[in-house]
């Protein structure tokens, strides 16, 4: 009997447990296994095999039933998911249904939750930008929230480290507000974009237009070839999963690297419900997991825990891990757990038509757009709001979907649509949202979800600073497009609610002082040193740039630190 007990404990004991297999968790698994640790990678979602799992990736348009539309049945059963573009006919199976993803809203919050190994790293938009000291210093300089406990110099080598492995295509600009990275060759721009770039940069000195920095392989370097990836085929169906492994995801990149070590154990269908804490040692001892299918509980032990379950789920886990020492959630001495919830706000900008250049077309479908880095509130300029925004955008030539001569039909009409239309170009602003203590998530224990977890109650909104910023986001876009020669330029504002950008951040912020933050400069929980959180929950401010690259860098850096601390016996 003794033998059985020992073996049972052994099977449940690992060097490290990583919770979540998405952008952050995949990196934690890779780094920790490569540094010699036996890692248990827990994922609440179902298994999704690289390549063979991507059911819709190679389908022709006529293999869709509804040309991408949702059915009335889907809209009825997915009232929240069907609010926005990521949930559609082709991506349906990658997202949790609304009946499983129960949550409540004091104010509207659109929460997009994947239900697969790899998490949102399968569906993500792949835009990859570094934060700068404009971001790291902003809270301190403006007296907002708390200071980041790190600066750009601390994370710069780790940006390089993750960029080299992930493979980021882009162009160096030498801008302090958008630090350059380790880039694969940049993707090409359309002729219209090159024209607009020239005119815009001439007309607005200090503003720049560049090709997007994107986690697609314009070329496959040896780091990528080493895990079996090949270069982008320009099909622009990335969010369905790539059979070529041409964009960075857990499946294409970090999981194969971790598997190679022989030290990875991946458990899908595993919902982490509690981090187990031992007050005598002031350490976590492991994780309690509920099987997503059988609803049976098991406990796993480890020396180190990496919480990478995505912002809301990571903080939910900490909030649910109550004990005598931590009645308000693990590590929540500060009361900041669940607070300072942020997202980016967007869905605002302008577009217009370009006259001429009808003798020019393009070849291939670029899985990328152009980017205009932040230019507001840098240097001495002071707008009537703090922080800033960037633009994502693109030119394109109208295709068969364009609205020509409303009432026309017949042979001429058909002929017109089978030839390309005019060039158009649009810009969409992505703005920073300040960290507000009042913007929060809490847990509602009165009606748990099917796994017995309390559901999240969201209470967050855009406030004055964001609203004022949006005026510039709209007006600047119009001004720039008009100055660059676009005609019929129209502003649009489709309204932005927290959660829509799917860059939800904060709720377990890093900081210098355990009284006002949850995590320290190494992403350790201040008061529970062997628990690390390296996903969006850690963000002390949101910047205006896409955050996933920063999660990768924070994770790799924290994993390196964790292993060093383990070796020293400090954990």
């Amino acid at each position: 009997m003794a033998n059985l007990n020992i073996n049972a404990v052994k099977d449940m004991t690992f060097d490290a447990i990583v919770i979540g297999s998405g952008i952050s968790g995949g990196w934690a698994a890779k780094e920790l296994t490569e540094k010699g640790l036996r890692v248990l990678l827990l994922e609440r979602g179902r298994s999704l095999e690289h390549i063979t799992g991507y059911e819709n990736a190679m389908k022709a348009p006529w293999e869709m039933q509804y040309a991408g539309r949702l059915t009335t049945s889907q809209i009825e059963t997915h009232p929240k998911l069907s609010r926005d573009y990521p949930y559609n006919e082709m991506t349906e199976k990658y997202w949790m249904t609304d009946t499983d993803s129960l949550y409540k809203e004091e104010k509207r919050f659109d929460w997009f939750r994947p239900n697969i190994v790899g998490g949102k790293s399968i569906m993500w938009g792949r835009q990859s930008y570094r934060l700068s000291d404009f971001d790291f210093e902003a809270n301190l300089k403006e007296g907002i929230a708390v200071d980041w406990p790190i600066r750009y110099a601390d994370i710069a080598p780790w940006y390089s480290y993750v960029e080299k492995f992930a493979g980021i295509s882009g162009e160096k600009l030498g801008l302090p507000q958008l630090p350059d990275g380790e880039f694969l060759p940049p993707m090409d721009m359309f002729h219209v974009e090159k024209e607009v770039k020239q005119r815009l940069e001439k007309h607005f000195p200090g503003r720049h237009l560049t090709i997007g920095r994107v986690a697609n392989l314009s070329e496959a370097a040896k780091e990528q070839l080493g895990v079996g990836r090949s270069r982008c085929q320009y099909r622009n169906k990335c969010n369905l999963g790539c059979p070529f492994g041409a964009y960075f995801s857990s499946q294409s990149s970090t999981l194969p690297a971790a598997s190679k070590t022989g030290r990875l154990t991946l458990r899908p269908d595993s919902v982490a419900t509690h981090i187990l804490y031992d007050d005598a040692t002031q350490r976590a001892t492991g994780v309690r997991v509920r099987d997503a299918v059988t609803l049976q509980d098991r406990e796993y032990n480890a020396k180190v825990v990496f919480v990478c379950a995505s912002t809301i789920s990571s903080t939910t886990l900490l909030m649910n891990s109550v004990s005598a020492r931590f009645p308000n959630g693990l590590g929540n001495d500060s009361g900041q757990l669940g607070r300072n919830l942020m997202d980016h706000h967007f869905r605002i900008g302008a577009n217009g038509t370009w006259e001429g250049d009808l003798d020019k077309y393009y070849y291939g479908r670029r899985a990328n757009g152009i980017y205009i880095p932040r230019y507001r509130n840098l240097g001495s300029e002071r707008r009537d709001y703090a922080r800033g925004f960037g633009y994502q955008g693109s030119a394109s030539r109208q295709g068969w979907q364009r609205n020509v001569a409303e009432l026309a039909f017949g042979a001429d009409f058909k002929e017109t649509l089978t030839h390309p239309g005019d060039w158009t170009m649009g810009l969409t602003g992505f703005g920073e949202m300040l960290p507000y203590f009042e913007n929060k998530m809490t847990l509602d224990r009165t009606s748990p979800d099917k796994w017995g977890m309390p559901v999240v109650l969201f209470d967050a909104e855009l406030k004055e600073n964001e609203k004022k910023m949006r005026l510039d986001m709209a007006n600047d876009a119009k001004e720039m497009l008009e100055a660059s020669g676009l005609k019929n330029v129209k502003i649009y504002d489709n309204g932005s609610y927290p959660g829509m950008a799917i860059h939800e951040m904060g709720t377990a912020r890093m900081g210098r002082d355990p009284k006002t933050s949850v995590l320290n400069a190494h992403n350790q929980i201040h008061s529970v040193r062997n628990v690390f959180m390296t996903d969006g929950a850690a963000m002390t401010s949101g910047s205006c740039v896409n955050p996933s690259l920063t999660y990768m860098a924070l994770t790799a850096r924290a994993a390196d630190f964790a292993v060093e601390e383990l070796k020293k016996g400090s954990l």
Partner: protein
Amino acid sequence: MKRRKAIQLGALSLGAFFSRELAVLAQQPSLLAGASSATTSDQELLLAELADLIIPNTETPGAKAAGVEKFIIRVLRDCHKPEEQKQFYHSLAQVKADGVQTFGLPFLQLNTKQRTELLTRCTVRDKPFFLKLKQLTVTGYFTSEIGASKALAYLPIPGKFIGSVPMEPGQKTWAL
């Protein structure tokens, strides 16, 4: 990159479609109340012919050859509320009735010129129906195998991206 498409199209198509549905959802107890209209073979034939007027055979086969009426029926049945379906098929019946009234013949016995006249009248008499029919026809056609691969330039795996290439004479729109 749906986000990029959303950026380009602004408030058009997808975004407007979903938010409209959401607004209606807020007002009604269930989208599924009432049965989906089952279509008769008459209705199917009529839809095929109307779609074929909108996108006829030219150098490439038209909507009828591409079976677009099947797409239209499927989308109406599964993606539209019962009242919308009812309205649509009622409007369809009006076109048929208009034909009998004007030419004294069932639609399928009319020649192309007569049918075109009926559809042209419809663009004024029942513009919402015409626009819906046209939108479904165009989408159904250009995502069909015939439409995408014959009428347009179909290139499933480009292999490279070149931002600027000269337009070939008679260059077709990319299907994807």
